């Protein structure tokens, strides 16, 4: 069973625990500038939205890579950058329609979300449930449940 990161922006408060958890997982430090998930603040609308790689089934980044440095992790379905192979050409950053693969000047490689090998640190750190890790086929289950609950129009004794 494959799982996906599921984001519910209405629950996000902008605390950036996810960004810190991501940077610690990958760099061993609390450094939000290195986070692979970013929270965007739309100030005037009062909205905060976490955003990261959705792990496309047909991943543009993977197909664009000239050295096959981006490969599928069979266990999680994540498209993973293999740093030892990556040459930092950045073609994947052009190919990705969503901007979720990015170059890291410090390492000369690109980075993207790799689902932490199946236990995403961002989802674990999120205090409000804005980021969850759920069954890929049923990311809509929570919303369906909410609406299902509203269908109760039967007056009760």
């Amino acid at each position: 069973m494959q799982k996906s990161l599921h984001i519910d922006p209405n629950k996000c408060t902008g605390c950036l625990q996810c960004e810190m958890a991501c940077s610690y997982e990958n760099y061993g430090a609390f450094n939000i500038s290195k986070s692979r998930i970013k929270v965007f603040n739309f100030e005037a609308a009062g909205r905060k939205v976490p955003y990261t790689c959705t792990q496309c089934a047909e991943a543009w980044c993977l197909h664009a890579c000239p050295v096959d440095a981006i490969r599928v992790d069979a266990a999680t379905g994540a498209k993973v950058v293999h740093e030892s192979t990556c040459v930092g050409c950045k073609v994947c950053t052009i190919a990705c329609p969503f901007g979720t693969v990015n170059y890291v000047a410090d390492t000369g490689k690109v980075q993207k979300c790799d689902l932490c090998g199946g236990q995403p640190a961002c989802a674990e750190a999120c205090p409000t449930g804005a980021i969850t890790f759920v069954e890929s086929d049923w990311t809509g289950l929570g919303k369906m449940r909410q609406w299902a609950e509203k269908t109760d129009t039967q007056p009760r004794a």
Partner: protein
Amino acid sequence: MAWAKKILRVNLTKGTCASEPLNMEWAQQYLGQRGLATKYLVSEIDPKVDPLSPDNKLIMTTGPLTGTMASTGGRYSVVTKGPLTGAIACSNSGGYFGAELKQAGWDMIIFEGKSPKPVYLWLENDKAELRDASHLWGTTTWHTEETIKAAHQDPQVRIASIGRAGENGVLYACVVNDLHRAAGRSGVGAVMGSKNLKAVAVRGTVGVTGIKDFKGFLKAAAAAKKVLADNAVTGQGLPKFGTQVLMNVINEVGALPTRNANDVQFEGARNISAEAMHEKRPSDGKSNLVTNAACFGCTIACGRVSQVDKNHWSVVNSPKYWGATGGLEYENAWSLGAANGVDDLDALTVANMICNEDGMDPISFGATVGAVMELYQMGVLKKEQIGIESPFGSAQALIEMAHMTAEGRGFGKEIALGSARLTKKHGHPDLSMSVKGQEFPAYDPRGIQGMGLTYATSNRGACHLRSYTVASEILGVPVKTDPLVTDGKADLVKAFQDATAAFDSSGTCIFTTFAWTLADLAPQIDAACEGGWTLERLAEVGERIWNMERQFNLAAGLTAKDDDLPKRLKTEPAKSGPAKGLVSGIDKMKPEYYKSRGWDANGVPTKDTLSRLGL
């Protein structure tokens, strides 16, 4: 170690920026943020210095947990000698600026001297330089943030700045960061303005790397987060209602200072409460509250994001106020509302926006308006002087006074001096609801006796954030005490003051203490910092900080006489509610408090006390 171990010294007179190692011996004695920066300040300035002269210094400081995964670990403080009070000033703020400063690799910035022309500090990791801010001078904090972000082509730059209030010498001007978070009290923004320092812009990509025991720290931080999540106040009340959860509660217990503390209950409280913020307005069918929001690292998220009706008379011609922005916290809803008898929720929200936009402390501003309105009702001040009819309850007068004060025009120049100076000038000094020149906030000492002692003895002038005994006296945290009696309040206030000083020095938020005690903080500090940190040691650090601040104030010329409340609270009994007939028992509590502190009858720490604390 969680300290960056590095401080930046900026000499504004010479235009130089230099890196220095953090004094680690002091870090072990004063922890960080409030404690450590105050230690630097008192070691470097003459206590008698004119707060607005180049000889005063201003320190922006983080704590060891700032920029970490500890819940609420995003705090920073601005420490200086305050122009409103002449006492130590230390104002704490959240948002994202403090964490960015830490992630750039700095524990604190010490500003000294005065720049010959307006400048801002640009700080990108190790790189620090002063840049021209002539084009920003005379503009708001909102404009300043937007302009600097655009100039650096980087939306992730974090900025702390002053608005026109700080430039114009409003004695309660604040430093605003991230548009609507503020180091709010005691006029730290006026000091920044006096130095011609418009803003500090930071981009940090170094991160916090030196946690002593990362795994242990994550475990301690996670356990502490669970405590916050499981607690009714921090887990449910604050996220849903914000600090505004208190408006109806404090009104019910008869401790809501109303119309310049003439009353202790406000008939319009419901209209400006958290509940009202949730309700749909009849005018446009939308609620004032858009959503809640967190500061950096905070798992409580008490912040309010509000939006007013575009057709409200106060904003109908000002589209810049139409978007969502920082909404009313309890203190501001009180100071702009109940303190003046105004119950127009959107008007209060707009007045609060103006305070954010131009960098003014809404507590001191609102309470000063309350004094102006009383003087107007008495006939002492006339419409011709103020520029507008100003009876209690006039939202129009409130908004107009906010504009004129921020912009430094007309009668606004008098409001800018605070209620103590204003009422004295007009012959009624007893009508200033202040201690040491700083206006007290939203808890009436007649109905919550411990808060009277809190205000009277607060080192930075009247303030609720130095010992929030409301937690105990009203909410029963950590133990319930009777708000109407003075017994036991001396020890209670001392314990709260010491614990608060430790929290304020850690990088975490005081609002955690609705659920946390020092026992929840200590394991996080201990895992992050070397030196062996227990709750007993943190309490001792807090007590050391309190006495250090006290010594500075005494050296600055303050005396036991300044530890007192406005006459009204001691002579005019509460007119209604559970506290009806009561006045503040400050005269009984004060000697008990001095004794509990180990101070003599004049409020001076004894030699034994100082030596016990290593001072």
